[in-house]
């Protein structure tokens, strides 16, 4: 059992989002204390072009947060920030009911409740984007409602285009559209890979957007049924080459800065996971080192129990290096 003992020599993975982004702690505390002025002050202080979906998601995951958000919206129906976070909270509540199970395993009642929450969210978010068409987090949430309510590929793309008109490299928005473009949500692999490449090409050096190339391959790999098909998919030289290029232009680029680059743990994780699966341990090791012991559910939930999968592939990669 030397393998197991060597694994225990490294720290176990840390899935806490606040470990990578300490501002999450402040956001949670302020929201729990009802200090929305402080929350707002923080969000407003973020540099121009920051992906504000991160703050929205952190707040929307706080149990019971909808109560104070509803009060905010009642007091000021034009409060774009409150409308957006409350919309996001409704989506969160809807997905909790729906669960991540495949559609065939979700009951009729679950779907009805899920859709009711999404419609409620959409109502708030329509208002938010109408009031401020440049508000990135609201458009990014509306990509989630479009997907859950199955409003269609063109409608999702239209929403992304509205977002991109003001935020051309919005990583969260791009990741959500990428999900929509996958066959499981009515898209095609051609569209998904094409969009990921488009995001990579248009992004500035050192930006996260290249990570979408990895996400597209991971989704494609996960969609294949047999282990032979999966292995064959990853053996294709162009897959490896695309991953190498995307990594070098994003998280491995000298201009890459993790601060405010919300999503970088997921992106590093995707590269680490894919290079591990391909068997390129040296490259996987680079990304694992970049992660420290930080982790996010995605992509590791695709590879088994997230913590176990993380440890297994990390230890294998670092043992070689």
């Amino acid at each position: 059992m030397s393998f197991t003992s060597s694994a225990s020599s490294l720290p176990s993975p840390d899935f806490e989002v606040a470990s990578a982004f300490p501002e999450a702690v402040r956001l949670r505390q302020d929201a729990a204390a009802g200090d929305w002025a402080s929350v707002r002050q923080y969000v407003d202080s973020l540099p121009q072009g920051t992906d504000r979906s991160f703050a929205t998601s952190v707040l929307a995951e706080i149990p019971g947060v909808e109560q104070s958000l509803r009060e905010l919206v009642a007091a000021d129906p034009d409060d774009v920030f409150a409308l957006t976070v409350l919309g996001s909270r409704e989506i969160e509540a809807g997905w909790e009911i729906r669960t991540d199970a495949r559609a065939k395993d979700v009951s009729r009642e679950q779907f009805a409740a899920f859709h009711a929450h999404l419609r409620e969210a959409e109502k708030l978010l329509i208002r938010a984007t109408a009031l401020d068409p440049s508000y990135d987090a609201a458009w990014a949430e509306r990509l989630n409602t479009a997907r859950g309510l199955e409003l269609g590929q063109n409608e999702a793309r239209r929403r992304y285009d509205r977002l991109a008109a003001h935020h051309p490299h919005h990583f969260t928005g791009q990741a959500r559209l990428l999900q929509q473009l996958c066959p499981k949500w009515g898209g095609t692999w051609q569209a998904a890979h094409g969009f990921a490449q488009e995001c990579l090409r248009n992004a500035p050096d050192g930006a996260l957007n290249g990570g979408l190339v990895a996400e597209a391959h991971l989704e494609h790999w996960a969609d294949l049924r047999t282990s032979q098909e999966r292995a064959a998919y990853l053996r294709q030289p162009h897959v490896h080459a695309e991953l190498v290029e995307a990594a070098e232009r994003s998280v491995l680029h000298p201009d890459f800065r993790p601060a405010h680059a919300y999503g970088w743990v997921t992106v590093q994780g995707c590269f680490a996971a894919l290079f591990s699966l391909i068997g390129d341990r040296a490259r996987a090791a680079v990304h694992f080192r970049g992660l420290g012991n930080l982790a996010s559910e995605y992509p590791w939930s695709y590879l088994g129990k997230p913590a176990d999968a993380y440890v297994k592939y990390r230890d294998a990669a670092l043992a070689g290096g």
Partner: protein
Amino acid sequence: MNPQATVRLTETDGIPTLFAQAAGPMRAGLVFRVGIADETLARAGVTHLVEHLALHRQGLADYHFNGATKAAFTHFHVEGTEHEVVAYLQGVCDSLTALPMERLETEKEILRTEEARRELPLLPLWRYGAQGYGLVSYPEWGVRNLGPQEVEAWAQTWFTQGNAVLWVAGERLPEGLTLKLPAGQRRSLPAVTSALPTTPAYFSEGTGGVLLDAVVTDSAAAQLYAGVLERELSRALRQEGGFSYTAATDCTARRDGFAVVTAFADALPSKQDAVLGGFVDVLAALQVGRIGQGDLDAVRTRADSALTAPDAAVRRLPAMAEDLLAGRSLRTLDELRAELRAVTAEDVHKVALEAAETALMQVPGGHSADWAGYTAAPTSSPHAVTGRRFASKSNDGSALIVGEEGVSVTTRAQDGTERAATVLYRACAAVLSWPDGGRRFIGTDGVIVDVEPGLYGVDAPTMAAVAAAVPPAAVVGMPPRERPPVPKPGPAPDGSGAPHAGSSQRAALPRRTALQTVAVVVFGLLGALCAFLALSFTVFGAEDPELSTGEWIAISAFLWGFTGLVSWPAVSILRRTRRL
């Protein structure tokens, strides 16, 4: 003051007359406060028929004249020399006083031809039901059964001196003009009915784009709202998105203090979802008050230029005649211009909010607007009647119920829920009655119930009782059908053949695509070839000494069965679609 900008109110033989000084040929119109919305579904088309009969004596005059039957007004319009205008107006009045009934059947035929070319709007029927303003959505079913007495009575009741207004634009009022019409009183506007329990509402139908209407207070702000909406729709759907080719709006006064704003954006079939989404967002932007001052000013300038044009007063005469008939105060061009000037973005915002409350949206089939806060317009009835139940012979779970109060068809959806379509005899707008015994009941709410004795095995005494329960005035005798419906075995998928609110069953079939046309030709030819083989074998195979009778029957049956199989795709497409 520009003399051309003033309109003088006078009288001609007791008929209020609006006169505007204008150069050029004389223009005039005789307007009556009667229209389609005053009719009933079972007698729909009677106004239009009277209008046609009234114009018949004009024959092939070479001056320009026309007639128009609208929801609440009927216009007779002419342009020519003073002499021609006098001749036309007097001819119309003479005809209205004594309709040329020898022309009745011919004009009915012309109306049927005209109708075949007309596309019927769907929104009114969903908003108002199968009555009042909703009748503009329906075919002129009444025309076929109208007798001379009924038509005469209609003309005597509605096309009267008291219910008319004349307008004239020219150098002077024509001399020697006498308008002799039956005496009668001014009629109030048709009642505004509703088939929508909740608004904003939507329904899914058709393959086109997105269509919306809304009822708002009639004002200059409403007119400008429609203009701003059109610009925003064009910008979002055409210029930015490239999803639509056409985006257009309209604002039409109903003359009861309200106006109907209509907005439309077409869509490529593959872009319908984005057109719907963009449409919703454009409306939302106006509802939160994001109204561009530039857009407002541009729309205002255009509206104002229509009021300052040299012929502005003349162009407004028909509308003023309607206002006068509706008992509304007349306003000068200057007053209208002042109202336009005073409209602020906040006023337009208020109209947007009013429109949001009353909106009815038509979305392409397969799409919904519930996600955008619109409630689905009812497509079924809250209850079925109690009475005798006749299960469908198709074994699709549907049943006809004949009760004391009315008739219902119930269907079972895949999820086990039962839906009912009910028409109560006391709220029955029309019963289409075919010689083969089939009856279609249409409720005033637009709900349809088909009572097909063949489909449900209804006995003759029950059918007789149903016929007796219907008020005779609601019955529409229909010509023989090519194919009365017959039971189709097997359960209907998703409960189709389900009860529909009005239009669903009445709507035109979807257009056939090019691929479907090719399929029709290919499978049709194959089917014909197989049929020829089957026929040859059936005819000549019987005499073949090498075949037993049993073999001959078996092979013939197989060949015919194969023919049916091969032809089915073509037949199926032909039944489901119509030619491009």
